[in-house]
């Protein structure tokens, strides 16, 4: 019960979460053909990044324009494993060097590079999916937050890192597959991931992990740690002089957001079947910030919905009016940032607060009519305080 309270502060929150679960786990799979559902799965894998951004940007006030880096790292870890599995000596027998990925062969590489070796192991690859992004984020975060780098500086430096990684992958075709990325992924431990059945399974795996991550984020937000994050955002010095290690807290959130992004990247690869530097660089990184901003930077569910809405909007709109799409995207983004900084979730919340205000007005009137009863209620409420304080 206590745990449930930590996750959902109000009944409304619990209900909206339940509606969201019903939407992505029941309604969409029943309503959409597998091709469309696969697309939803792809968008939901961006949702992992969005959850990380809610913690990092919404709650902690740190804007990273390099989340694509971690999404990409997670994705590449998974793609490298799948590519090695797809490049067994039999199916690559026409190559000069059979048994290595095709793009290496095209680039006259005759031996698997050392850093590819460990990705033959599924255990290693699936751990690396979130541990590698987490570790790199930890190092970057530790170096920067310890030196009090934040705000605009942090945004610019993370953006530069996104550029470096995407250029680096792009420029080393023999080792990374270059601009085309890693393609032609077929099986996972012998299980063909391209069949309809596998796509359903992977969709539900993605939904399950996404919901688990969302609950984890909601838990974090509602614990003391969540309050410390908000406090750090608004009154950094006070938090520091209350004995908290501000740099460590920020580094932790940054690393956690990176790990979630890496997981999202891996699920993207499993569902979509390829990974390329176009998902790593500046533009995808900032687009993920857009999804989060449109959905609501403070709300976990809002941010995931933001990913779905913007991407479906993009698919639908850019097919019909490719020229107007960038206008719409830029315009929406400016409007959201300027007028609705809390995004869709904020708009919905406001209408909720309005309702709540109306209803308190109603109960206030009732109290005036029945003063005796309300006094009774008040004393009951006072008596309840120590109870709620109990663990």
């Amino acid at each position: 019960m206590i745990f449930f309270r930590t996750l959902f502060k109000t009944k409304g929150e619990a209900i909206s979460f339940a509606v969201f679960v019903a939407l992505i786990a029941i309604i969409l799979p029943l309503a959409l053909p597998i091709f469309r559902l696969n697309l939803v799965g792809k968008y939901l894998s961006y949702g992992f990044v969005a959850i990380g951004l809610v913690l990092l940007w919404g709650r902690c006030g740190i804007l990273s324009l390099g989340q694509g880096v971690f999404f990409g790292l997670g994705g590449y870890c998974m793609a490298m494993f799948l590519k090695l599995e797809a490049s067994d000596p039999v199916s690559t027998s026409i190559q000069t060097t059979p048994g290595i990925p095709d793009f290496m062969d095209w680039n006259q590489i005759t031996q698997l590079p050392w850093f590819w070796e460990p990705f033959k192991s599924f255990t290693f690859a699936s751990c690396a999916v979130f541990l590698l992004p987490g570790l790199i984020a930890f190092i970057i975060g530790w170096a920067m937050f310890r030196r009090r780098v934040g705000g605009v500086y942090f945004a610019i430096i993370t953006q530069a890192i996104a550029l470096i990684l995407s250029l680096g992958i792009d420029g080393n075709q023999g080792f990374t597959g270059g601009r085309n990325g890693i393609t032609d992924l077929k099986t996972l431990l012998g299980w063909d991931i391209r069949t309809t059945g596998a796509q359903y399974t992977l969709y539900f795996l993605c939904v399950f992990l996404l919901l688990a991550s969302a609950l984890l984020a909601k838990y974090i937000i509602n614990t003391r740690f969540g309050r410390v994050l908000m406090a750090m955002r608004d009154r950094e010095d006070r938090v520091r002089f209350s004995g908290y290690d501000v740099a460590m807290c920020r580094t932790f959130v940054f690393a956690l957001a990176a790990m979630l992004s890496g997981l999202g990247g891996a699920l993207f690869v499993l569902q979509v079947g390829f990974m390329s530097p176009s998902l790593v660089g500046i533009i995808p990184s900032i687009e993920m910030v857009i999804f989060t901003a449109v959905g609501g930077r403070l709300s976990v569910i809002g941010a995931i919905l933001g990913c779905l809405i913007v991407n479906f909007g993009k698919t639908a709109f850019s097919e019909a009016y490719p020229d107007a799409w960038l206008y719409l995207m830029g315009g929406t983004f400016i409007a959201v940032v300027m007028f609705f900084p809390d995004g869709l979730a904020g708009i919905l919340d406001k209408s909720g607060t309005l309702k709540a205000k109306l209803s308190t007005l109603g109960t206030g009137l009732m109290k005036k009519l029945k003063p005796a009863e309300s006094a009774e209620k008040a004393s009951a409420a006072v008596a309840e305080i120590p109870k709620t304080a109990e663990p």
Partner: protein
Amino acid sequence: MQGAAETLFFLSAPLSFCSARPSGALTLPHIQLSPPMESYSWEDLQNIFLMQGFAGISLFSVLLLMGLGLAVIFGQMGVINMAHGEFMALGAYTVYLCSTLTAEYAPSFGPYYFVVAIFIAFIVCALVGAAVEWLMIRRLYHRPLDTLLATWGLSLIMQQTFRSTFGAREVTPTLPEWLMGSYSPKEGLDIPINGMFVLGLAIAVSFALLLFMYKSSFGLRLRATVQNRKMSGAVGINTNSVDRLAFALGCGIAGIAGAAFTTIGSTGPDSGSRYIVDAFLVVVFGGAASLMGSLASAFGIAQAQSILEFFLEGTKGKVATLLVIVVALMIRPQGLFPSKVRAH
């Protein structure tokens, strides 16, 4: 800026290798550019360094002009303008437009139009900048991260506008004769004249900016606002109009950067976005809002990129330069020339 580099690549007979791909997907031909260092004679190396150095000077000039504009805005308002690259492109397109119009209506003016076009580019960008400040930036005051995101939205819109107006293909204004060609003090060494011109332009703008900041009354008001906004407001400085002018000035300088850019490359809708990260790093690495810092870091970044580009294949030179800067910034976040104001 690539001109000199390409000639030399040609001389050193690059081994190019196009991969035959069965999948039919688009691939970049893999180019082996760099023979080992030993294969160059000392004479060659000297010329390479000189020539890449001069090629770097063009890049340096553009980065410096971009960086100065950004630094003015960042120093004044603590705001990063993500659409700064698009303002540069706007300047470049303005020059292109001037060139087309001159060719159409006043061909005899051809040799001189470029100088006038630089001023027009400055004015156009400054006006658009002032409008953007009025419509957007001032409403986001105290929210620097949101300003960054909103200006990114603006950059999308500007890019699409360029694409709709001028097409997706890159355009080049007709440059006057006197800007073409190169000066060869000795054999094997060509110094492009456009590079020298752009360098002169960048230096002139830097000096003008310094004079403006330290000698004009507006510069005084601007510096006062940077140091103490509340107090400046209290002594009767209209900080809102100072902000607007500073933003317009920064965008105007980006316009000049665009004009400079047309002499060394062709302009496409996304030309600006290719330079934006470098320009940010120039400002941040130089130390916030320090003009000297911007100068030093623009020079360092441009030269490192230009010289490394020759010895490392493809984009590796750029990757190496950026990597060094990012690591340096992690160790020394205040940059080369930190501001010496007591921190609060």
